[in-house]
């Protein structure tokens, strides 16, 4: 499905996300694919904070805020409850941030995958706790400056690599998992559509830049997201029937250095820091290209 073939109805409309918000784009596109017979569960985080301000409620479909740690567990209950009411053709979809997914919500997510609950869990990844003011999460990349990993004289931002959420999820033998980016929105839309047709637990990890937290112009969201995949600092892949597939090999990488240098959160990095990032990217891709063909 192409973006211009999407449902013309809006299901996430009138919210107060910042201009250029990648997360709101992911939520909007996903709900257009899933349509009116979907029930969205959003934990505490930017997307619930901007969309659920009584009396200005912005979801055109059924939606609820879950506890921060409870996206997956609430989805389980919603799915079971609606099924008990006799509904068959609906989607219980979670739209959770990186912190809500890889940190506080990972236990509930693991439990839901383990049970095989028929839910679609979408993690929009802006690589920090944005709603509370840009603090480090488990998906904050190496080197990034956040408000809890300041770039000072002694420590230069986040000293830990990004948690490998996609493979952690895949290790549960989940029926379907994929990575995506709002930079390649058609690919994301296809993956949401594909996931919506699979029974059992589905997981999509979509990169969604946050101009506010990343220190980029609001007009650059898509370009930066696309560049992140093109320079190899993100990858588009799927896990299905026990196998990994790489969906897109950018071949020769675009400059990772230029990609990092244009973002305020990486401004402080030294050449050595950037070399380290490139080295770990190359190691990752060596493995991806070898194993995910």
């Amino acid at each position, binding site marked *: 499905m192409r973006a211009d073939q999407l449902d013309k109805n809006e299901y996430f409309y009138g919210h107060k996300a910042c201009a250029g918000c990648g997360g709101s784009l992911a939520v909007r596109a996903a709900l257009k694919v899933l349509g009116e*017979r979907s029930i969205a569960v959003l934990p505490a985080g930017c997307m*619930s904070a901007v969309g659920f301000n009584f009396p200005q409620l912005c979801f055109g479909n059924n939606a609820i805020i879950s*506890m921060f740690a*409870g996206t997956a567990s609430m*989805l389980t*209950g919603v799915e079971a*409850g609606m099924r*008990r009411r006799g509904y068959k053709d609906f989607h219980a979809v979670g739209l959770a941030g990186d912190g809500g997914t890889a940190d506080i919500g990972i236990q*509930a997510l693991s*439990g839901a995958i383990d049970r095989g609950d028929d839910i679609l869990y979408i993690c929009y990844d802006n690589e920090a706790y944005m709603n509370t003011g840009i603090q480090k999460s488990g998906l904050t990349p190496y080197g990034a400056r956040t408000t809890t990993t300041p770039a000072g004289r002694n420590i230069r931002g986040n000293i830990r690599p990004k948690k490998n959420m996609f493979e952690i999820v895949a290790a549960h033998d989940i029926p379907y998992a994929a990575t995506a980016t709002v930079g390649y929105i058609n690919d994301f839309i296809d993956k949401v559509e594909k996931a919506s047709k699979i029974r059992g637990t589905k997981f999509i990890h979509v990169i969604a830049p946050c101009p506010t937290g990343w220190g980029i112009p609001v007009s650059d969201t898509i370009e930066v997201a696309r560049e992140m995949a093109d320079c190899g600092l993100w990858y588009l892949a799927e896990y299905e029937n026990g196998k990994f597939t790489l969906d897109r090999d950018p071949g020769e990488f675009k400059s990772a250095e230029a990609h990092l240098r244009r973002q305020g959160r990486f401004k402080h990095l030294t050449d050595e820091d950037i070399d380290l990032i490139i080295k770990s990217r190359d190691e990752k891709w060596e493995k991806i290209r070898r194993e995910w063909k």
Partner: protein
Amino acid sequence: MRRFLSGDEAFAEGVRLAAPEVISAYPITPQTVVVEKLSEMVEDGSLDAEYIHVESEHSALSCAIGASAAGVRTFTATSSQGLLYMAEGLVYASGGRFPIVMMNADRSTALPWNIYGDQRDSLALLDTGWIQAYAENAQEALDMALMAYRIAEDSRVSTPFMVNLDGFILTHTYETVDIPDEEQARAFLPPYETENRFDFDSPKNIGFSAGPETNYIFKYKEHAAFERAVGVIEESERSFAGIFGRKYSGLIDTYLTDDADYIIVTLGTIAGLCRDVADKLRSQGIKAGVIRLRYVRPFPGKEIAAAVGSAKAIAVLEKDISFGNAGTVYTNVAAALQWAGVTAPVYNFIGGLGGKDISSDDVRRIYDDTAKGTDRVTFIGIEGDAQ
């Protein structure tokens, strides 16, 4: 049908009769028997429900909230550490007005670890917006399971309901219990109907944020629901008596209070021993009485004051302490009596922590000390050296 059941088993029978559609629970002693029994009922088909093996208590309640938002009847059960782990979900469920029913096996909380009964777990969470009832015996536990759903789901109430059973003393003690038949249960408990649920024809955003301009209105509505709950509890008990032939006495249960000089106010299983001692004291010419709180939320302030009447002194006996002050039940009772203009002294006795036995001698001493006058707060069994 009469059967010999433990409190946990009896409660599970009550849940079966209430027929929740989604059950999500995580095991913890001394609640485990309930979830095991319910699993067996789901397996053998005597209960047609989704039994969801959640990976934590936080998820148990989160899942129940999700199912309740979908519009179906739900059940969960826990105890102690599990209840505390659910704390975030407790306020979430009540704020969202989801009439979830939970059984809590009252148990001590770590540290030090202890699996035995006291009431510090549930009383610590009194302010989370759940109706809190305390059963005294297995029959009442079963009956409360049914009544809990009817009261919680009543549209005038729409508030989650926690039924508390003293750990081991009630959860694991066997009694002969009358199990109502399913037809009676259906007559008493109508199917759950609500508008507070997802709807594909008219989509709903529920569980939202509300700023300072409106937040207090939502909170006031929660409070007002508790005031209405008092009448709904009475109504439900009347209907219950009509269908099942068993009568309950509303928020409190009184024993020989009409002319009593000295009254123990307490809750849970220990009330039986208190009544026993009151009988003995009466035979010695001492006018002793007992008030058992069946509900702590809504709090029976007026009812307690009316039952206390012109008693000379009152004791509050509880298995709980709010460190740095007094027992939580005591502060509630004392405030209610003060408000009602009762001037008799009110003393607090803390006992049974971590499952420590409260003996009839202990209860007799409580009556003695109350008659003579004593400290505001007394820890039963702590004297001299222990301090």
